[in-house]
């Protein structure tokens, strides 16, 4: 195994393992900034040499400024990793699939605690990311703003007075900022109110989607809410607008849970109990089953139903049950059927002493 990947796997996933504000409903807050260098082609138009040069320039700027704790940070060359190792980076939300699928000329810098990263030569030359547990967009902004300044004082960013930061796709131009919060919304899903809520949020020009892959997928009742527009508002205005909506969603979710309990507490208790039972006693668990059950147990944790399961344990399982994490901890490639067995074993083990 790649030694850096091995070191990474030894890390607790900080955005899941640490506590954050409103962590019962908001799992994590993330901001990413898209940046490019003046006078250089965007990655999709760049030659291999040009890509390589950008990798060097950005890495040097990070090392010289000490951004991300570089040069002692993680520095991955995705093309030297196995497909499984690359998938680990995706499952830990450090890199996008598009980025990992590129044929060389890319580099991924990651701070030692995995809270910040820079994808070099994704769609844009720099995709800077900061990720923290809970709902704390402002703190994430402070962190990434500083990181961006450190890099920006050493790199000549492509910037236009009227259009702002110039990005490969005009859907990102301006602030180049995409901010998102991952929310666990089982109350709204169980009470059937998630549909109208999502529609309402969409009308405010914000995007909502399930976090595992495709748009319609809401496995685990996890949703990601993010800004769509990047131009015409300052970063603070975008974050304020997003934060207001997130605050309301959290309140709606709490409300929905309270109502569900008031109306029919046994249904909720049953849902939590069955979820726990499945995780604790099943010998084969598909990814979907595991995610949905973890969501159920997470509600139970929020309701104080378990003595010895805390939110961190549940959060960590949300990552650990993913295919690449299962296979690397097993030390070999596993078929889908084998993964289901391993996944069930992992859940049984982790939730043993509840």
């Amino acid at each position, binding site marked *: 195994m790649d030694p850096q990947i091995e070191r990474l796997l030894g890390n607790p996933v900080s955005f899941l393992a640490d506590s954050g504000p409103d962590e019962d409903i908001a799992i994590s807050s993330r901001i990413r900034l898209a940046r490019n260098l003046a006078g250089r*082609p965007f990655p999709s138009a760049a030659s291999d040499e040009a890509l390589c040069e950008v990798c060097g320039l950005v890495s040097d700027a990070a090392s010289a400024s000490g951004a991300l704790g570089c040069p002692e940070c993680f520095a991955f060359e995705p093309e030297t990793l196995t497909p499984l190792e690359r998938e680990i980076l995706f499952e830990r939300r450090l890199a996008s699939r598009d980025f990992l699928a590129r044929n060389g000329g890319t580099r991924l810098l990651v701070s030692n605690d995995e809270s910040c990263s820079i994808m070099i030569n994704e769609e844009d030359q720099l995709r800077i990311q900061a990720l923290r547990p809970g709902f704390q967009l402002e703190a994430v902004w402070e962190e990434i703003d500083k990181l961006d300044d450190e890099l920006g004082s050493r790199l000549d960013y492509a910037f236009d007075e009227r259009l702002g930061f110039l990005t490969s796709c005009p859907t990102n*131009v301006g602030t180049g900022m995409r901010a998102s919060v991952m929310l666990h919304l089982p109350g709204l899903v169980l009470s059937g109110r998630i549909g109208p809520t999502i529609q309402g949020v969409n009308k405010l020009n914000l995007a909502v989607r399930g976090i595992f892959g495709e748009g*319609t997928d809401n496995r685990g009742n996890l949703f990601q809410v993010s800004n769509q527009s990047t*131009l015409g508002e300052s970063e603070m205005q975008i974050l304020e607008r997003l934060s207001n909506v997130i605050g309301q969603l959290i309140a709606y979710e709490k409300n929905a849970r309270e109502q569900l309990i008031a109306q029919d507490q046994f249904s909720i208790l049953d849902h939590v109990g069955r979820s726990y039972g499945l995780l604790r006693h099943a010998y084969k668990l598909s990814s979907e089953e595991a995610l949905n059950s973890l969501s159920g147990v997470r509600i139970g944790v929020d309701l104080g139903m378990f003595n010895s399961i805390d939110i961190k344990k549940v959060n960590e399982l949300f990552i650990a049950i993913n295919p690449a994490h299962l296979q690397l901890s097993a030390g070999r490639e596993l078929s889908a059927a084998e993964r289901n067995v391993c996944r069930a074993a992992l859940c049984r083990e982790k939730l043993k002493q509840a």
Partner: protein
Amino acid sequence: MLCDVCKKNEATIHIKEVHNGKVVASNLCGECAREKEAKGEFGTLGFNLAEVLFNLGKLSASMGQADSQQEETRGEELPACPVCGWTVGKVRESGGRLGCPECYRTFEPMISEALGRFQRGTIHLGKRPKSAGQGCASTLRFELERRRRELEELIRREEYEEAAVCRDRINQLKKELEKCDHPAPPAAEPEKETGDGSAD
């Protein structure tokens, strides 16, 4: 109207295509359009995100008839980018991505029209890179410029209360800038609170 694919998000992209004389309509949200694009599913339908974003090619909601000859060439009167050599055709091929920063100038008419449709504004009001102008006066000038644009935007959006706040700030900035350019002698009478929040 909801997106045809996810049935959750509001559809913001409306496409009508003429297939063998039949009009086929689809309504998608931005996310699903991007996903379809990434999977290459638009290929078979003969369109991609670039065409949706920039209104290129055969796509046109208002087109009932296949006036394809004229539509096919939309945007193609624009020259190739002098820096990276990309053409409108290449932008379309790459799903709406541009080749280099200079492309924003080269394809300006096409881009500014598109920005008006999918961004909340057309002017950058956010941060500037560290390298761009520092110091008292330049910081103030930058904020003044930004606030002026902000005021334009707020009026355009008919957010008048915020516009009034913005206008007051502009007046305050003008005064501060004047002081910056012509510093008062040290014994000057104490001014009323100017606030030191001028720096961004």
